[in-house]
């Protein structure tokens, strides 16, 4: 079937992708599967950087290992693809080494709270000035669909072929109870809300967690017979429940249950660097010499 296009509706295609200034276009196509939510999150992050008017020269992005771990590799920023689970401590070093940087961690659930769980809670406890975008697809995608610490009870994975019997983490609650200053959750379907949340988090300080529930059609949906990428999106549309300020103890995710989204925590509290500066300033007075914002590199002279 062919129809004549209304010439008034036909626009010249843009010469370049609108996100091109933020992306390494020479690396596109990316590695992510059709229907995967990670690319959407990357786009929301890039859009938020643009809207927030960030100086991109001062933005660093760090990822660990896994599907989401590839995010740093596609951003046209100072990008670091670190070891499995260690994106947060790597990012901590970047932030403390050059305090003026805006440091974002984009990585997955297995990376950040499986192998990297210890770093996650300690960075939150210290309120290190990091924005963490945790893409939760309930499964280890890159390695072939193994069980994750976020896999809902009864969901099937390649290492829990009879269904998962381990209780999963409730990540907003984990972050909030560990001391995070900002905690929000959205799904990869909430493009505008997620973008706003990232933009808002850029404006905040301290340990900021944005959990993004993302579909994994290739593994999670297939192993659990949940249909295609589109049906995953439809599920989010029908089952996301927005409850700003919800008690984080009540935002667990059960298998195919509703997903409570929203902003749960937004507290102004001092960051690690602020606490350190204040403390040493009080104790040492003029003798305290903090790390300069531009870093501790000593130039030739």
């Amino acid at each position, binding site marked *: 079937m062919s129809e004549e296009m209304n010439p008034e509706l036909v626009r010249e295609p843009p010469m370049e992708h609108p996100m091109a200034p933020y992306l*390494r276009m020479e*690396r596109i196509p990316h590695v992510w599967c059709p229907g995967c939510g990670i690319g959407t999150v990357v786009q929301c992050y890039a859009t938020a950087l643009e809207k927030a008017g960030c100086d*991109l*020269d*001062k933005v*660093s992005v*760090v990822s660990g290992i896994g599907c989401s771990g590839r995010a*740093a*590799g596609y951003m*046209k*920023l*100072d*990008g*670091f*693809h*670190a*070891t499995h*689970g*260690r994106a*947060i*401590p*790597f*990012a*901590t*070093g*970047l932030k*403390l*080494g*050059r305090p*003026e*940087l805006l440091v974002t961690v984009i990585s997955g659930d297995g990376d950040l709270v499986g192998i990297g769980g*210890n*770093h996650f809670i*300690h960075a939150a406890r210290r309120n290190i000035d990091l924005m963490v975008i945790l893409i939760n697809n309930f499964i280890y995608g890159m390695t072939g669909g193994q069980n994750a610490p976020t896999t809902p009870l009864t969901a099937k994975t390649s290492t829990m072929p009879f269904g998962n019997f381990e209780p999963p983490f409730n990540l907003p609650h984990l972050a909030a109870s560990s001391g995070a200053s900002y905690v929000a959750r959205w799904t990869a379907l909430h493009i505008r809300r997620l973008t706003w949340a990232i933009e808002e988090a850029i404006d905040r300080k301290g340990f900021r967690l944005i959990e993004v529930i993302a579909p994994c059609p290739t593994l999670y949906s297939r192993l659990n017979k949940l249909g295609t990428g589109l049906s995953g999106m439809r599920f989010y549309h029908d089952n996301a429940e927005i409850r700003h300020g919800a008690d984080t103890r009540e935002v667990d995710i059960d298998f195919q249950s509703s997903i409570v989204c929203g902003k749960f925590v937004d507290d102004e509290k001092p960051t*690690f660097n602020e606490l*350190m500066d204040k403390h*040493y300033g009080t104790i*040492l007075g003029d*003798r*305290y*010499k*903090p*790390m*300069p914002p*531009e*870093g*501790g*590199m*000593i*130039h*030739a*002279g």
Partner: protein
Amino acid sequence: MKADPTGVLTGAHYLDGDYACGEGAMAAGCRFVAGYPITPSTEVVERIARRFPTIGGTFIQMEDELASMAAVVGASWTGTKSMTVTSGPGFSLMMENIGLAAMMETPCVVVDVQRGGPSTGLPTMVGQSDVMQARWGSHGDYEVIVLCPQSPQEAFDLTIEAFNLSEIYRVPVLLLLDECVGHMTEKVVIPEAQEISVEPRRLTSKPPEEFEPYRLNGKPVPEFARAGDGYRFHTTGLTHDERGYPVMSVECQETCVRRLVDKIRDNADEIVRFEEHDTEDAEVVVVAFGITARVARLAVETARQRGIRVGFLRLIALWPFPEKRIHELAGSVGSFLVVEINYGQMVLEVERCAAGRARVSGLFHGGGGVHDPEAIVEAIVEAAS
């Protein structure tokens, strides 16, 4: 360039090896340290934690050694000279991110104050059994530089040297103290800042649009761009091309990893550090390092007085190993005696380099103490016969 006087505690001090190492780091320009407490290394970071707030440095006690090493790699990408400090069990935990530092070509220094192992072993007592782990501990092919001081003064001097070599070759440089050197207190002379040579971070002079993070520019090591200077570069632990982008191919693996190995191997003559005495007429050459070198030195002098033609070679850099010199000596001496506080690690390297041209024997100690000098004398007598 000359050291920044802010970090240099000029004067004659009475310091233990751990404190001297900390002072060496600060003199070298180190301004970021992440660490996790572990005996017998903790005094290094305790010294730094006390001094850093007044010299513009940041110390953070991380949640474990995995985090400490990862933070050091991250911090180094800001151009801030960075270090971590540990002992055996923590050293094991650091291995993966030491590999990351090697792969990303990140200058940094890792101090391992060796204790008896394996596992928890002898936390408060001496060992020298991490020397092969230092060389081979992370998976895959890579090269590192490993220095090994025998005194607090040398702990100070070699810590500066470690930072300098890490900047020149963009590798993690490991400093292997042992519990004895770490905890012995001796005179340490810290010179004036203008008498201390330090290597600055070798930043690229190219504009961002022409810069590729792993493109060589007539030198064996690429130029550095630090995070936050507008280069917007990418780096990864994956096998990567000159742009720092992952490439999964046989060809890229060959180019990428070959260079990591060759930049050290091709410059080994510049990096190798050792000292030798009385080797000209020697029938036997004793090889030792760290605290054992001091014990063996006494035994060598005693044996000389007893008329045995014995020489001495002390390894200052353990890696790269002085293979040319050992091979050369193997042509003129009858045998080597390797004395070390482990059950035979560096002796394997001496055997390899002697290549059958001289006999090689070892005198080993399991750890927890140093050799009895008289036992070394007896082993020299036996090796000479």
